[in-house]
């Protein structure tokens, strides 16, 4: 069945089912649209079969538009009962009191233990000792590499003990202007930056986030390294050289040997990369560091159906049915601990070294979230862009960023 007919059928069913004694949970999501609507429908169908008294209706928006929409809806007093949040936005929604404390609901739910969730991932969705959300999925970023290009250049595959130095040496051998192949790629933007500085022992703030340390020597050195790979060593293409192609597209075309990108690319690369590839831990400089991104789901503080919404979220994040649907479709990685759930993930063919995904969790860095998160990403992102384009030196860019960030901290 096509998505159109599934959606229409689902709507028709929703429209015709008796509403008398039933509760309808309104759920809003970004990760399901537009690619995983079939999976969401299947998950909802399984949930409704298990809970005949609850209906789930959903609304979707693409990630770019999602928060505009969600905030408008909440501001107008029409919050959905349950909605999806990435970790970064979770923090500001929770601190503004928009989310219901799930603690009492979980305490009353005797048959359920949070031990099913990865503890780090679940802890991300708590604030001040209260659990405001359940963790739905996580993803991280590792080093993808094109084995064929390595073989051709006679370079050994990346290993866990590689540092930036080994990465650069390999990248220089792998870069081949004649064939248009580049040695290594990592974008120069906010997210890549806070991880790269962690690989150099740096951080954007002090531990309790009261002071801005953006322009520390370790950070300047890290940004210099990011910029040098493009401008000095010429092992990474510039924006103009990429010419509107994504890094994933270039990797698939066999034109990038090493790529730092998310595990969400597995499906695409498995289907469309016509060469051998695998993944490895990222090289660091003085430390190992890997991105950790999590999506969670929360219940609105104003929902009249908190119990039903909680049931749905619990099912969506931890039930065997939901987890299996998710893994089979490659719809991110459920953050559950049960080995039998995860085995299905490890068993999938490419890439060979799937265990790296879990190894990377040991050195995870979470986004340096503050209340004015979107201002922070815009300010720092803009300065990084200036450094990338050579308008400012890394030192200048980071000093300017630090000065602009201090007032919003």
């Amino acid at each position, binding site marked *: 069945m*096509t*998505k*159109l007919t599934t*959606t*229409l059928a689902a*709507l028709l069913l929703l429209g015709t089912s008796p509403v008398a004694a039933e509760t309808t949970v309104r759920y809003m999501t970004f990760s399901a*649209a*537009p*690619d995983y609507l079939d999976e969401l429908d299947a998950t909802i169908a399984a949930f409704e079969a298990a809970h005949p008294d609850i209906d789930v209706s*959903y*609304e*979707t*928006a*693409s*990630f*770019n*538009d999602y928060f*505009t*929409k969600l905030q*408008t*809806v909440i*501001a*107008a*007093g*029409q919050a959905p009962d349950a909605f999806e949040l990435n970790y970064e936005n979770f923090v500001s929604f929770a601190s503004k009191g928009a989310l219901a404390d799930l603690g009492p609901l979980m305490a009353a739910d005797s048959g359920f233990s949070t031990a099913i969730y990865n503890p780090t991932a679940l802890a991300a969705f708590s604030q001040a000792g209260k659990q405001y959300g359940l963790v739905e999925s996580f993803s991280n970023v590792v080093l993808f590499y094109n084995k064929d290009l390595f073989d051709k250049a006679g370079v050994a595959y990346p290993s866990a003990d590689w540092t930036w130095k080994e990465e650069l040496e390999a990248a220089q051998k792998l870069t081949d202007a004649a064939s248009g192949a580049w040695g290594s790629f990592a974008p120069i933007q906010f997210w890549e930056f806070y991880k790269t500085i962690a690989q150099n022992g740096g951080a954007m703030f002090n531990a309790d986030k009261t002071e801005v340390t953006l322009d520390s020597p370790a950070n300047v050195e890290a940004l210099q390294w990011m910029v040098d790979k493009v401008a000095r060593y010429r092992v990474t293409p510039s924006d103009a050289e990429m*010419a*509107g*192609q*994504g890094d994933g*597209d270039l990797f698939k*075309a066999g034109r990038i040997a090493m790529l730092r990108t998310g595990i969400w690319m597995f499906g695409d690369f498995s289907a469309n990369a016509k060469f051998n590839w695998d993944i490895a831990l990222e090289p660091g400089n003085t430390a190992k560091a890997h991105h950790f991104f999590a999506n969670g789901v929360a219940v609105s503080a104003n929902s009249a159906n908190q119990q039903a919404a909680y049931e749905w979220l619990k099912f969506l994040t931890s039930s065997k049915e939901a987890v299996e649907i998710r893994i089979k479709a490659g719809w991110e990685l459920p953050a559950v601990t049960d080995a039998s759930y995860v085995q299905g993930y490890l068993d999938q063919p490419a890439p060979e070294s799937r265990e790296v995904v879990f190894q990377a969790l040991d050195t995870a860095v979470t986004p340096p979230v503050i209340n004015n998160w979107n201002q922070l990403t815009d300010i720092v992102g803009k300065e990084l862009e200036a450094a990338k384009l050579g308008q400012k030196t890394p030192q200048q860019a980071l000093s300017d960023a630090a000065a602009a960030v201090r007032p919003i901290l």
Partner: protein
Amino acid sequence: MARPALRPADVATYAVLAAGALVMLLPFVWMVSTSFKTGEATFVTPPQFIPANPTTDNYARVFSTVPMGQFFVNSLFVSVTSTALMVLNCAMAGYAFARIRFPGREILFYAYLATLMIPQQVTLVPLFALMTWLGWGNTYQALILPASFGAFGTFLLRQFFLRLPREVEEAAFIDGAGYVRIFFSIGLQLARPALATLAVFAFMASWNSFLWPLIITSNQSMMTLPVGLSFLNGRYATDWNVLMAGAVIGTLPILAVYVFAQKYIIQGLATTGLK
């Protein structure tokens, strides 16, 4: 009588107009061409106008990502309905503003005009609150009604009626007809070119509207084409083949309507005394 030879000035005019026409049309040709290309044929220099291995995959991917057919139907229904309502509303109000003296007329008119100068982005939340209070979230009326009223159209029609000589109406008055009857029997007839102009603007505005439909629709059964294109842009940010296929689907229907109706549209625009 011999046909006069082309004068040099005419040749120059044709050359300029033809070059300009090329600039206007080439982007569309390029859009269509890219939409039928494979990834490999896209990133090549010099660019290929006729794809080497044409493919319809990109269209298949657009339709498997978002139900463009449904979006098209929604866009068409919303635009046609709101255009009809807009033309009627603006004509009635514009006529009254031009012809009938009533207390508060000036203030009201300036209040209308002021709404043009506030960016729509900050009125989204109050408007959304109103719609949900009415229980109209994710409905056609929520998409249609805000696009059925507007200060620009009222202004346009008021100016038109102000310039129109009153003689014909005077005669009707002597026959004892009231304003309402005169408007419907005479005003509307006389205003046809101006109405056509407004219809074009209203249709375009509604057809292209993006932010409001994005906010007020909550599932794909109600979404419109620009929202669908934005979905594609979010999903295939660097996949130009799919994006161009989406752009073709979003553009062709309106172009078809335009090619069919352009004579009336442009004549309407040209004769309305819009200036």
